[in-house]
């Protein structure tokens, strides 16, 4: 590592924000991809991968992604729940790569619920 300046210290801190948002719980948004057996069969893995790609591309640091088991609505998988801190959780159903990208841009980044894909707003919290 080269000699650091105070600005470098700040930069390093900034770069690691995402990792520590995950560990410290100081995140702004949380996405839960439902990965029960049916979810995985329906393609939840692709959704997860697409989402992780988008996150890396946009270089967001304050969003965390978790998985959870079957959401109990196997017929409408793949599903994901998006929660913006302070807001109610929104469940999206019958997702594909294109839809999750749109949800990422609109809901996660800009905070606008994508109503056309949303099934329900304000279900049980997941943590």
């Amino acid at each position: 590592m080269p000699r650091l300046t105070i600005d470098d210290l700040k930069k390093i801190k900034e770069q690691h924000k995402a990792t520590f948002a995950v560990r410290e719980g100081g995140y702004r948004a949380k996405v839960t991809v439902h990965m029960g057996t049916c979810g995985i069969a329906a393609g939840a893995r692709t959704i997860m991968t697409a989402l992780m790609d988008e996150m890396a591309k946009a270089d967001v640091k304050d969003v965390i992604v978790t998985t959870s088991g079957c959401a109990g609505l196997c017929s409408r998988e793949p599903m994901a729940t998006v929660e913006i801190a302070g807001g109610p959780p929104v469940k999206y159903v019958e997702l594909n790569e294109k839809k999750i990208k749109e949800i990422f841009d609109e809901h996660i980044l800009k905070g606008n619920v994508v109503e056309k894909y949303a099934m329900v707003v304000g279900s049980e919290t997941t943590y």
Partner: protein
Amino acid sequence: MSEQQRVSLMVCAGTGCVSAGSLKIKEAIEDELKKRSLEKEIGIVLTGCNGLCAGGPVIAVYPDEIFYQKLRPEDIPHLVEEHFVKGRPVQKLMYKMPAKRKAIPVMSEIPFFKHQVLRALRNKGLIDPEKIEEYIARDGYMAAAKALTEMTPGEIIKVVKDSGIRGRGGAGFPTGLKWEFCAKVQSGTKFMLCNGDEGDPGAFMDRSIMEADPHAVIEGMIIGARAIGANMGYIYVRAEYPLAVKRLQMAIDAATEAGLLGKNILDSGFDFNLEIYLGAGAFVCGEETALMRSIEGKRGMPRPRPPFPAHKGLWEKPSVLNNVETLANISPIILHGAEWYRNLGTEKSPGTKVFALTGAVNNVGLVEVPMGIPLRTIINDIGGGIKGRGRKFKAVQMGGPSGGCIPESLIDIPVTYEDVVKTGAIMGSGGMVVMDNNNCMVGMAKFFLEFTAEESCGKCPPCRVGTKIMLDILTDISEGRGKEGDIETLEDLSHDIIATSLCGLGQTAPNPVLTTIRYFRDEYESHIKDRWCKAGICRELCSFHIIEELCKGCGACLRGCPSKAIVGEKKKPHRIIQDLCVRCRSCYDTCKFNSIKVLPAGFEGEPSELVETAAAAKSGKGAAE
């Protein structure tokens, strides 16, 4: 573009967990993640001690805040599949509440974690101690930057003084004052020193900090060095702490490479070099003047003060020595200010304190709590109460061999320097050994005195000879040779040793004896007069008896007796043949029905005479009380 990870797995690589196999767990997890192509999404970090070593190997999962314990490599495939693929945390591997046996998953709901406030341990289990970037990411070196570029030494000292922080190494001397004394002395050469000797048997606070967050110690030292005007520093660590030494050395190297140690730190014009000195491990070397002699390559023996180290310390140059935990608290004080520091704790004992909780409690481990917290909360909530059916809290030994015991009647005292000293114990460095009704207080005092008598450097006759005489008396008492007047002799000797010893070792060595006499005098008396160690620990002073009326004849005691001293038929009351009994206690600890009682040595009467006492025993109180 940085890789994004959705989960951080913090695998504990503290000394406790590594010896329980945490590195194998890490490998197993890595293999499983690779198999499922999850290695990019899920990050694994090796951390320092989490403080729940008894549950090792432990891992914490973020953001879920789930805490797994006692993992075995064969658990891993299932765990990865369920939790990291499907998002279903695995109940049976989670931390469990001792009494309820119900898994409580979320860390902030585990009482062990819930009551803690982490300052000195702020990065415990959260960063990889071998990566300087992770320390920096958590505000690391920002306090040094502030102190070096925005503050004068006088301003640094003022904040530290105002914060009221007191040295965590034992004596509780105000750190700001200590720095001020040294800053005022004119000298071209000064030294900033760190005491990582941690000689108190059973304590491991400082080791954990050095292992889990070595940069926190280094940063504290940089700030202290700047305040007093020192350009050279040493961290004195005992050689028995190889992992701490390794992590500190890596941290020093990384900080030096990054220009955070060495010449012209952060372009402030301030130079500070840091080296590790490996201590030989004698207890007395933790004493400040002895420690300095030891770094000079001489035999570690205390010398009289004054002159104080602030004037004549290492190599006769002005020096400041601070404890590891004290130093780990400095950065947050500089960053957040004195007021912030004072928002926890009490007026005279602000902030938090780290304790090593050991002994008869369910959760043995490392805890950091606000000063002023009731002792009861530490033992019952964080410690999870006394371990084992029918056992009761008896006393807690605080401050190690220099400290004393605090009995049950005082368990509601707030834990502060002042309140602990009033009991006759000391805060010390933070060792807390919990004892239950199966601990013999004479034996406890003897244990600590054996330690100090052994560790006395021999310079002062009262310390060297006095502790030996006291130890002989205690040995006599515990082996049935106690005489009338022994208690008074112990008290007299204690006061002489305290008054005439040069260093803290001698001055505090009698504390365990004095406090046990103060609170458990009757126990000394029954050893001496009745030849009765009611806890059943001193073999020459007890006998074990089965109370017929209570015995269910289950035979458990009989099966476990190593000398076949127990006779009896199934479902009928059993009996101990006293001539054969070697007083190993095994039956006493085995009997589920509390039917076995401890009576004086050579007790000959009818055990049924004791039915009354035994009935009391049923309600949870042993005949021992």
